[in-house]
């Protein structure tokens, strides 16, 4: 019989403690991010799809050596270059210039081999994560065009 009343007493007490906790939580500020209106900053090591890095003039740093293409285990990078004549110190020199840099993100496993193999720091992971689409073609990125769009 003593256990009966102590059960009721301690049971009610624990219920009141629980209600006290929710009462305190009620007045604390909310912690959720209102996603479409607010976004959180991606952490430094977040891996989105790769992106070309521009130099000071807004041109890609890439020298079209193709190391990234060769390093990619999934074969999702394809790049091309053209040689153009440029004038340096009064002499005409031939220089390889990147003409095409396509990423097939449908195959990419975000391993990061391309970024590690780049000797010029010309590619890096983007912080892009809003990539939902119903069409496969939307994940074939033309990185040169994206770079121009960022410059614009």
């Amino acid at each position, binding site marked *: 019989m003593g256990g009966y009343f102590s059960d*009721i007493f301690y049971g009610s007490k624990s219920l009141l403690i*629980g209600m006290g906790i*929710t009462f305190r*939580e*009620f007045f604390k500020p*909310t912690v959720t991010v209102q996603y479409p209106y607010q976004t959180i900053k991606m952490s430094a090591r977040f891996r989105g799809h790769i992106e070309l890095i521009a130099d000071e003039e807004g041109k890609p740093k890439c020298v079209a050596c193709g190391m990234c293409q060769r390093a990619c285990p999934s074969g999702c990078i394809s790049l091309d270059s053209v040689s153009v004549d440029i004038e340096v110190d009064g002499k005409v020199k031939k220089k390889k210039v990147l003409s095409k840099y396509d990423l097939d993100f449908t195959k990419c496993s975000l391993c990061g081999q391309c970024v590690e193999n780049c000797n010029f720091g010309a590619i890096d992971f983007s912080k892009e994560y809003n990539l939902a689409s119903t069409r496969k073609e939307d994940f074939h990125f033309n990185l040169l065009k994206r770079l121009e769009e960022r410059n614009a």
Partner: protein
Amino acid sequence: MSLTLLNVIVAVVIAIAFAAANAAYLVWAERRGAARIQRRPGPNINGPFGLLQPPLDGIKLMTKQLMIPGGADKILFMVAPVLAMAPAIMSFVTIPFSEGIAAHNMELGVLVIFAFASMGAMAILFAGWGSRNKYSVMASVRAVSQNVSYEIPMLITAITVVMTTGSMDLKAISMAQSGGFWHWNIFPSLHSPLMPISFIIFFICSLAETNRAPFDLGEAESELVAGFHTEYGSMGFGLFFMGEYANIVIGASLTTILFLGGWDCPFGMFPGVWWFLLKIYLLIATFIWIRWTFPRTTIYGLLNLSWKILIPISLFNLLLTAGLLKVF
């Protein structure tokens, strides 16, 4: 004749409007309250503070098709949601909101409200049976056994209050408690020192009668999909939902009238209907607070609480009150 008919129609329209508005905005309050407790904002997109959410939810529910499952008992399936909502609205008729505001004051108001409240269990049983769905049947069996077992302590505590007042008239019960908060039934009086405990028992029972967490065994989502309204969509579901919230308002009103002095002001100032509304909304806020604090009980825990704790204590209080009334 025409005037009385008009009066009846106006009263019914007001009762339905009050029930529907409460149901809609209590859902909003519940969602906002739950969200605050869980430290998120809740519905906040539609309108200021998400206040347009309830009408939009209503439009969404009304534009959906009412599906009747193939094997279902059509008549019971259609009757059940109406039966959940109609008694709840009917109960509003007898509730006096203030000395002058009552659709129809009856001498047996307490009895009428309990009679209508017990029809809610039938609606749940019909819904579960008519759906021809195992989950629904199990849920409705649970809900009915719960409603039956919690009606007993609820009625016993109500009888205790009725004995002290000597009337079943809700208005008379409220009037008997007027004149400051120390006259309220919740405070230990000469009639019975156990009245605060009776109040808690009544409050727990009204939680259980409305099938709300932590006593929502009838719609235990984790085990029984959605319980007795698994097969309901559209306004069928909407009516169950509105009925539940209307029942919450009635439970809070009844608790207020029986224990918290009805529309009586605690300090004898500004008498009026707002004290009644303030009290019922405070009680409803507690309902919501409790719902989002406690996890669901088991069916055994639920029945044990009623049969082993609430019923003996309320019976003891009944006998004590009867004895004290006889002595003094």
